[in-house]
Structure formats: C-alpha cells, structure tokens
C-alpha cells in the first residue's frame, strides 16, 4: 500500500511538471499580451514595455519557466495580472467555493444515481417518470439547464436564488456549510443550502445518469446471480440481501464511473459558476483566460490536475476496499 502510494505521488509530480510545461509552452506562443490587463486598457506603449520588463515577461521562455518552477517549489504561483493579488491568495478565496459546490453536487449525483439505479433494478412502480425527468435534465446542455432552472425556480416560483453563495463568509474554513454551523448561524446555513441547490443540481444531473446507468446495469446483473437467489431462499431479508450481497458486489464499476464523473465536474464548473455568478475557480479561470492572466491560468490548471489525480487515486483505494481481489 505504502509503495503504491509513493509510486502514485511520484507519478503525480511528473504529470504536474509535464502539465505546467505544456501550459507554459502554449502561453509562450499565444499572441495575447497580459500586461495591459495588469495596467489597464489605455496604458501607453512605454508603460506596457516597462511593466513587461518588470514582470520578467521579456525574458526567454526557458528562463521564465525556470523561475516559475522555482516559485512553484516554494509555494509561490506568482501574482495574478488581473487581481494584482498572489494567486495562492486568490485560491484561498475561490477554491473553497468550488470544492463546496462540487462536493455538494457529487453527493447529489450519488443520491440521484442510487435512486435511479435501484428504482429501475427493483422495478419500483412509478419510477419511470422520475427517471424520465432525470434523463430530460441530462439531455439539456448545462447552460440551458442553468438558465431554465433560474427562470423556473427564481423568476417564476421565487423559491431559490439565482446567484452567489449566500451569507458572508466569516470563516474559519471558507466552506459556508461548515462555517455557518460553526458560527451557529442556522439561517445562514439554510441560505447556503438554498444557494447550493440549483447550481448543484445542474452540475449533478448528467453525472447522476452516467453513474446511475452503470449501477443499474451492475445491480440487474447481480440480482440475477445464483448466490443472491440462494441468500433470499435462505430467508435473509430483502434489505440485507441488497446491502450485504448485491450492492457490495455491484458497486465497483459505479465507483470507477463516480471518480471519472467527479473529475468532469471540476471541469464543468466553469459554465455553471459563470451562469450562477458562483465565486469559484471556474469563474476565476473564465475571467483570466481572455486577458492571458498566465499565473492564474497555470495555477487553476495545476490545482484541477492535482484534484483529478488525487480523485482517481481515492477511487482506486475505494475500489480495492469494495473488492479485495483488486490490488490497490
């Protein structure tokens, strides 16, 4: 296990090095000029050239890349050309918001997927209508789904908010769900959940279907297995059979798919955060790209890459836990 983890860590470092190299190379051949974003659109040519020199952007690409790596090793991703703040400080502001949204959406996706799969596999009466709604939602593009949700739940029904995270964050973690409870702010907790619901649902629906289908297929296959029939014929309760025998043996593929979908969710937040004005790194990235804010773009890419790698590692561990036959 420890050897395996160490191997994974090594691979992670190599992958992140390659990723940062790719970003740097792409940035170096990009025709954009980020210095104007730093100074302002009307800044004179002389000021732009002077600032470019101060920022080291007139150095050869390899020198800039070396400086970037040295900074990275010291935990310094540089200063955002747009916000003028250290990128790490921006992450402290934006990353918790995205993690909170994605985790919430992921849990929602699991809930929807499990109900989707079990209702189908067990032929629960009336469940086809529920599955139909989910499929309709998954068919629509996220942008359309988001706007549609805002029009219905915000504008027409007035039951959910259209933008933002809700209450002010008074710390300590940056995760409002936790912070509001820690601070005893129950109305704030409720408001936070309200603000999470719509963007979380938009983010969750498509992954829920993907996970649900895999799980359903596994469940149906497992339910027809001989050992399940044997367990039922021995007098074991339906619930116990489902949890102890069926689910455990069906869950492997679903865990894999869940890991994959979690990675996609982090990529998918860009659109969702933009529509809902969610102050996360998706929105941060969307604002950084048009102005070639390289430190911010590199930082977000590295963070998302790291999250994706870690997620896959966790998935492998969970799979091993679910099925000891697998070597983690």
């Amino acid at each position: 296990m420890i050897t395996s983890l160490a191997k994974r860590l090594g691979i992670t470092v190599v992958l992140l090095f390659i990723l940062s190299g790719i970003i740097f190379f792409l940035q170096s051949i990009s025709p954009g000029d980020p210095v104007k974003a730093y100074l302002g659109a009307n800044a004179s040519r002389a000021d732009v050239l002077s600032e470019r020199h101060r920022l080291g952007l007139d150095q050869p690409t390899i020198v800039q890349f070396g400086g970037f790596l040295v900074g990275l090793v010291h935990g310094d991703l540089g200063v955002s050309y747009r916000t003028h703040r250290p990128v790490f400080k921006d992450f402290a502001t934006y990353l918790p918001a995205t993690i909170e949204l994605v985790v919430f959406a992921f849990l929602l996706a699991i809930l929807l997927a499990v109900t989707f799969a079990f209702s189908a596999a067990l032929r629960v009466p009336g469940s086809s209508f529920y599955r139909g709604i989910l499929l309709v939602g998954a068919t629509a593009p996220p942008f359309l789904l988001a706007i549609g949700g805002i029009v219905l739940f915000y504008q027409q029904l007035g039951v959910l908010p259209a933008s933002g995270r809700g209450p002010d964050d008074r710390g300590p973690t940056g995760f409002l769900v936790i912070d509001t409870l820690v601070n005893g702010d129950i109305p704030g907790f409720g408001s936070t959940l309200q603000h999470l619901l719509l963007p979380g649902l938009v983010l969750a629906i498509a992954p829920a279907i993907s996970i649900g289908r895999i799980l359903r297929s596994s469940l149906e296959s497992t339910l027809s297995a001989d050992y399940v029939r044997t367990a039922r014929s021995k007098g074991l309760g339906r619930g116990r059979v489902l949890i102890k025998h069926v689910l455990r043996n069906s869950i492997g593929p679903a865990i894999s798919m869940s890991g994959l979908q979690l990675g996609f969710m982090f990529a998918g937040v860009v659109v969702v955060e933009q529509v809902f004005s969610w102050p996360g790194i998706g929105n941060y990235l969307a604002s950084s790209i048009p102005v070639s804010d390289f430190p911010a773009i590199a930082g977000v890419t590295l963070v998302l890459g790291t999250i994706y790698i870690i997620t896959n590692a966790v998935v492998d561990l969970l799979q091993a836990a679910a099925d000891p036959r697998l070597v983690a």
Partner: protein
Amino acid sequence: MHHMTPQHRMRAVIATAALIPMLALAACSNGAAAKTGNPAPTNGVLTVGLLGDIGQPPDPDIYYANNGTAIIINTYEGLVQYKNNVNDVQIAPRLATSWTVSPDKTVYNFTLRKGVTFHDGTPFTSAAVKVAFDRRIAVKGGAAYMVEGVKSVDTPDDLTAVVTLDAPNSAFLDELASPFGPKMESPTGLTKYAGSDNAQTYLMTHDLGTGPYMLTTAQTGTKYELTQYDKYWGTISPFKTIKLPVYSDSSVLELAYDKGDVSMIAAALPSSALKKYSTTSYSTSYFLPTLQSALITVNPSKSFFATVDARMAFLSAIDKKTLVKQVLGARSEVATTMYAKGMIAGGADAQSIRYDPSIMKSYAKKASDKNLVIGYATGNTNAQQIANILAAQLIADGINATAETFTTSTVFGWANDPTTGPDAFIDGNNGPDGGSPYLWGHVFWDKTGGINYFLCDNPKTDDLLNKALATGDKSTYVKAAAAYESMGCYMQLSYNKDWVVAQNWLTNVAGAQNLGANELDFSLLGIKK
C-alpha cells in the same frame, strides 16, 4: 433498413420532450418581465448590479478599467470633476472650489474646499495633494502619466495648492477631472497602512477617500458594498448603503433586475434588450452622455490595406447611418467628428470621408488580394454584428471578407506585431481618459498611446497634438485630426451613450451621470415621493 428500437424511440421522445419545458419557460419569462420590479426601498439600500467583477483593485492609483469606476468615483474625489449630464466637456469644482491657470499652462493654482475630511477623520488640506501625486508616481499604475509632469506642489496654506508643471499642459485639468485621475487619499492612512507596497494591499479592501461613501465590503468576484460617510461635505443621499453584487452572466443580471433584486444597471446590458426595457412598466431607460464611441481601425501592415487608397476605399464603404440604426439603436448616434462629441466646439473636426460604396466596388475589381478579416473583441455583441454586416457587404463587392473574434489579450498583443492582427477591427465602445482632445488623439492615433492597435501613425499628427497640448489651441487639434484622417486608418462610427435602466422610483439618474466614468454619483440619486 434501420428500425428504431424501443429504447431509441424512448430517447427520441425524451429529447423532444426536453424542449417543451424550456420553450414554455422562455415564453413565461417574457410575459412575467412586465409585471415585477421592486418597490422603493425603506431600508436605505440601493442595489446596483455589476456585470463581471471590476477586474482590478479599487485603488485609485491602480484602477484603470471599466465598471469599477462606480466604486472609485463614489469613495474618492479629485480636485475637479466633469460637470454631470451635459453634452460637452465642462470642468466643475469638487475638492477645489476654484482655480487659475497661468497663460503658459504650467502653473495651476487651486483653492481647496473647507471642512472636508477623509473617511478616517483626517482633515483634508493642501498637504494631501502632494502626497496623492507622489503616491501615484510611486505605484506607477497605468494612469501615472497624468502627474509625471508635475515639477512641484506648493502649499502656502492649508487651503491652497499650487501645482507647477515642468512643461505646458493644457489637458492637466482634464487629467485631474478624469475618473482615472489622481484622487485625494488620507496621508495619515497612507502612512499607517503603507506596508511594503504603498498601502496597495490595504486599498484592495478599504478606502482612504473623502467621497460620499466608504468601501466597506470588497469580495472579489462576489460583491462590493459602500456605506454612506456621515460626515460627507456634500449631498447626503437617502441611500445609506449601496450594494454592488457581481453577476457573471448578463441574462441572469436582467432576470435579477426584472424580479426587483437589482434596482439599477448601468452600461452593462446588450443593445438587444433595448426594445424590452422601452416597454416595461416598472422601469425607465436613460440614455446619458459619455465620451465613448464605436470606432473602426484599419491595419496598414496587412497586404490588403498596404496603400492609403485601399484604406480609404474601405472606409468609404461603411454606411454609418445604417449600422448605427440596425445595431446600436437608441443608445448611439452617428458620429460626424474625429474627436468625441463636444470635444471641439462647433464640430470643426468633422470627418470628411463620405459613404460611397462604388469606390470599394471598383477597388475590389482591381485588387489582387481579395481576402480580408474584420475583427471584434470576444463578448462585444454590437461589434460582432457590425463586423458581420460589413463582411456581408464586402462579400457582395467580391471580397472574401470574414468576421473573426479575438480575446482581449490578443487585441492588446497586436501592438507588439501588427501583422498578427486582422485587416480591420471594430471597437464597439471605447473612450479616452478625459475630455481633452489631446487625451483622445494621443491614445487612439499616436503609436505610443494605448489604443492604437495597429500602430498606424502620422508623425505630423503627433507633432500637432503635442503643440496643441502646450497651447490648448483648438484649431491645432483640428489640423492634427485632419492629418490623421488622411492616413485612412481610423473612423469614428458612433457617439455612444450610457444606457442606464432604473426602477421608476429612482430619481435624478440623469443628474448623477458622471461623464467619463459611465457610472453614477450615487449620492445624487433620490427616491420618488
């Protein structure tokens, strides 16, 4: 022959069914828009929606972008300002009540307003003027040039500041009046919070101004909040708090306004929403004067436009009247001058290029290179439409014209190598730092200025602009404009107004319009009784 399986049929039905609720919602949303809005607030809170974050810290010596001027002009004040809501440029008092200018335009003597305090309680005196200028130079933001020519600031008494320049500058008052101009900052606060960066870190989330409001919340990407300064020397508005939530999507901002969660939107809505808000019962549309324009610039480094004749032929093919009517609508009027509207009294700087499509038609027949790209900035829907219409017209003339989008940073990068840019660029809305013709000509026509995308330059124009700067002579500015027009690199398409939509109970919106900032002085707004 392929037969649909039951599963495929079900998916087709579901996909079709997915459209129905979306269409229903779209229909419902249009109908519902006319019936909402919000009643006048009784808690003294005004909510103004921001489209997109302000982009840079709200530090007056750094901020050099767009919608964040709403915060700057309401928390800070300069010595002078532009008179609100007039169609021409007029300098008006702010922290200086009067001033004199020496005949050679090098000495500016300001009498300062009595009884003004900074938000931290420090009294405003003439000493703050030098501190503000010095800080601006030390921070070296994009607008630092405005005070780089200051040789000295003398303060014979607490209410007199004498600014001496090292060279004549007839645009100095315009630079001081600019929303990006130097603002007075508390010397006490600047010292206390200096840190290692001239208080830049502190001013990311606080302010040290004298304005009617204090910056009390600054959550980048989320919201900003201004709280009324109860010791403000000027008009005290009924609005104790100004909330500025950030919206990333204009459709959602519109919905929030229609629902009444936002009370006002300034300069953020697309022209496509003009018709809707001309008929909503709870809302009023205002079209307010600005220094902003839509412009077309031509790239002389591209083979198609290598000659002046080619560039002139292209500009002659532009039907400004039709484009403004079709695309920009009520928020714009056809530009007839080289400088912004009202910069040269009497319009002596008239544009001489007339619409004559036959010139481009006959040029196109002779042209060996018939490929042409018209660029516009990503997200600028008006510029996109103009580019598409122009491209279509040119195709009819036998030119292989296409419209192409470019990100902001790519647009800024063309100055490093104009050959990487398109053949022409539509700038949907841009403007100078202030109301002086020098600030216009320098930034758009001088290759050392900030918005001469393709570095099309006429040394004669630069020389005339510098001469005019020293003297303020309008006829010299007119000659500079004519010299630049002869290059065929530039045409002003329209004068753009600031389109503001506000709930009906909000009063004095027009009177609060800050020329140059495209934002409002919130302290001048009121509530209808």
